[in-house]
């Protein structure tokens, strides 16, 4: 009783102490929840530390999602379906902005990210983040398909890096015949039935001068003869002649492991494979690796599928302004340069590719820049996931079976794709 009386009597003193305490310990920092995948190269930790040091009023809370893009999509999608206000900033694969924008899940960033700023980024990456005239994400990483090859072996045989797909097959066959090593594979890529298969196959189709869809007409183009021809080429010559059947179950890690173990002559992968295959701790072929744009079909142009990761803000976030401060930091010039130097990965800002220090450390950034300027985007539409599942089914069925009826499968796939695309036409109706 006595102590309570004292407390009430001395309440003004308590208030003074409280005010003093508040001055010493400032208001608790605002928490920004960032949904990301596990980053293994260690740059994200340091960046977040630096950001928090520069912005003491903000604290970044990381939530780690699965590494596979498909599974990450389902995690983020589930949060949106629950209208989860906890998630503020999230990583977005290059194929999601249209879907997340259309579903009303991603916040339009026009007020934060005006066209003047957008101009400083690679145009393909900006286009991928634009849907119906609004921008929904800020590109951080830009990935493009690249051809890695064993420089030492090609030199030994007097071959220049192949410019066309048939040339690549012929070179591989000559080398395989000469080496006589049953474990050596001519080519390793990603041919499992999953999203990566679409990326790989689009590169053959586009470098044959064909497309997977007609964006204007909203129609599939898979059944057209050139597109079918590219698919047959993969079935008969890439998988059929110079690769092991195992590639039909390979994603990026398995196909890269084959190459870094010295068991593949040619390898298709994203820019991150450069650092991985030249790291003596991880790779038996470090220092023997060359990199060049992907081959084309005779008369066609080299084509790389556009990949990469963007940062977006959730429509259900209660803190879009602080969230934007974090995105601006992550995608700013200084940060992108730091990430480039630390990882060798392709970034979204154009000036990264003109920076003398970066070009000195990573001469291959020149190749990366060229391929990203002509990268082929996957269909930019809110129904991309169903389209992708149809394409994955078609491509896998066409190349995993030696005598597959490509024409029939392609027509079925086109019919299914058209049915999905027809849904978009209903928009016009009131």
């Amino acid at each position, binding site marked *: 009783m006595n102590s309570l009386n004292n407390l009430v009597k001395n309440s003004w003193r308590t208030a003074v102490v409280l005010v003093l305490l508040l001055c010493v310990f400032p208001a608790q920092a605002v928490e920004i929840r960032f949904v990301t995948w596990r980053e293994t190269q260690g740059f994200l930790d340091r960046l977040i530390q630096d950001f928090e040091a520069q912005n003491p009023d903000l604290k970044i809370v990381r939530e780690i999602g699965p590494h596979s893009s498909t599974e990450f999509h389902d995690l983020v*999608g589930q949060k949106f379906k629950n209208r989860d206000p906890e998630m503020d900033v999230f990583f977005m694969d290059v194929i999601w902005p249209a879907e997340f924008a259309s579903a*009303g899940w991603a916040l339009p960033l026009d007020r934060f990210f005006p066209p003047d700023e957008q101009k400083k980024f690679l145009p393909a990456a900006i286009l991928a983040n634009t849907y119906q005239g609004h921008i929904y994400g800020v590109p951080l990483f830009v990935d493009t398909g690249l051809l890695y090859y064993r420089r030492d072996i090609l030199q030994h045989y007097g071959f220049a890096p192949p410019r066309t797909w048939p040339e690549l097959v012929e070179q591989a066959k000559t080398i395989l015949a000469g080496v006589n090593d049953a474990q050596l594979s001519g080519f390793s890529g990603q041919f499992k039935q999953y999203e990566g298969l679409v990326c790989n196959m689009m590169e053959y189709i586009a470098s044959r001068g064909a497309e997977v869809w007609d964006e204007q007409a909203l129609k599939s183009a898979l059944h057209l003869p050139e597109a079918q021809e590219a698919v047959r080429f993969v079935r008969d010559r890439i998988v059929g002649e110079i690769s*092991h*059947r195992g590639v*039909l*179950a*390979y994603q990026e890690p398995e196909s890269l492991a084959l190459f870094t173990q010295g068991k593949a002559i040619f390898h298709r992968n994203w820019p991150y494979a450069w650092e991985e295959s030249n790291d003596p701790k991880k790779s038996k072929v470090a220092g023997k690796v060359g990199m060049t744009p992907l081959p084309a079909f005779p008369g066609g142009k080299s084509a790389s599928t556009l990949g990469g990761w963007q940062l977006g803000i959730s429509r259900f976030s209660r803190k879009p302004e602080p969230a934007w401060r974090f995105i601006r930091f992550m995608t700013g010039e200084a940060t992108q340069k730091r990430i480039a130097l630390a990882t060798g990965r392709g970034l979204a800002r154009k000036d990264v590719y003109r920076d003398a220090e970066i070009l000195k450390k990573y001469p291959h950034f020149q190749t990366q820049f060229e391929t990203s300027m002509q990268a082929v985007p996957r269909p930019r539409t*809110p129904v991309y996931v169903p389209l992708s599942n149809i394409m994955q089914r078609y491509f896998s069925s066409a190349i*995993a079976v030696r005598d597959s009826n490509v024409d029939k499968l392609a027509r079925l796939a086109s019919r299914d794709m058209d049915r999905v695309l027809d849904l978009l036409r209903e928009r016009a109706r009131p």
Partner: protein
Amino acid sequence: MRARSNPALWYILPSFLFVAVFSLYPIFASVRLSFYRLILTLPWLGEKFVGLENYRDLATDPVALHSLTITLIFVAATASMEVILGLGMALVLNESFRGRGLLRAIVLVPWAIPTVVSSQMWRFIFNDRYGMFNFLLFGDKTQLYLAPLADTLLAPLAIIISDVWKTSAFAALIVLAGLQTIPDELYEAADIDGATAWQKFRRVTLPLVRPALLLALLFRTIDGFKVFDLVFVMTQGGPADATNVLQFYGYKKTFAEGMIGYGSAISVGVFLFSLALALGYIRLLGARILEKSGAK
């Protein structure tokens, strides 16, 4: 006053509420959604009532029919093998020998491992380059190495093997429980009659353990219909849709593509199939038990 006269109602109320909230409500919600066209990524299309359209599409969807075939093959192969293997294991575990307790525990280990973990393990075993599968079959003859998960015939087989490895122990557990209810006197009597081991198995063990076998078969069949995680980890439905089981197809439609209505129709289809199977088995089991009591 009635409530007081029948307190049983109050006792079952909590469990009824539990089942209602966590089982009945989701089932009814799925059934309702399966009559609508609802696509999450196209919100402006709204939630449109389409009657039986989703089911009509499902019945003519070649991918779904192919998935159904694969699922049925998977169920038939795994359920039968698991029950036969489980019976064999149970017969061994029912004998008395030194270290039986330890062996009983060890046999259950595969079943206790989470499926996601064991699937990852089998994915490594079936790897075309460094997998144990190839090494055991071909040793260092690497030119003969197979790529099971890249082959449209071997991939379903790989999934069947993984499932049999994992859940035979579960079947064994149920059969073992059945074996332990057989009174020893029956075997003693058979011995006195001079029955051979085979005759004892055929005339005493098998008829009496049959209800347990049917029960194991029921569990494995229904569980087989729900196979998802093995496929998710090992093949993602590939190659060429060769392992695209129904539940995985439904998952992709619902959660990845956001086609809630069509995905629900697939789920309801799987549910009805399982229900029909369960009812069939229960009638069979019930008939068995009735037969037994009638014979008395």
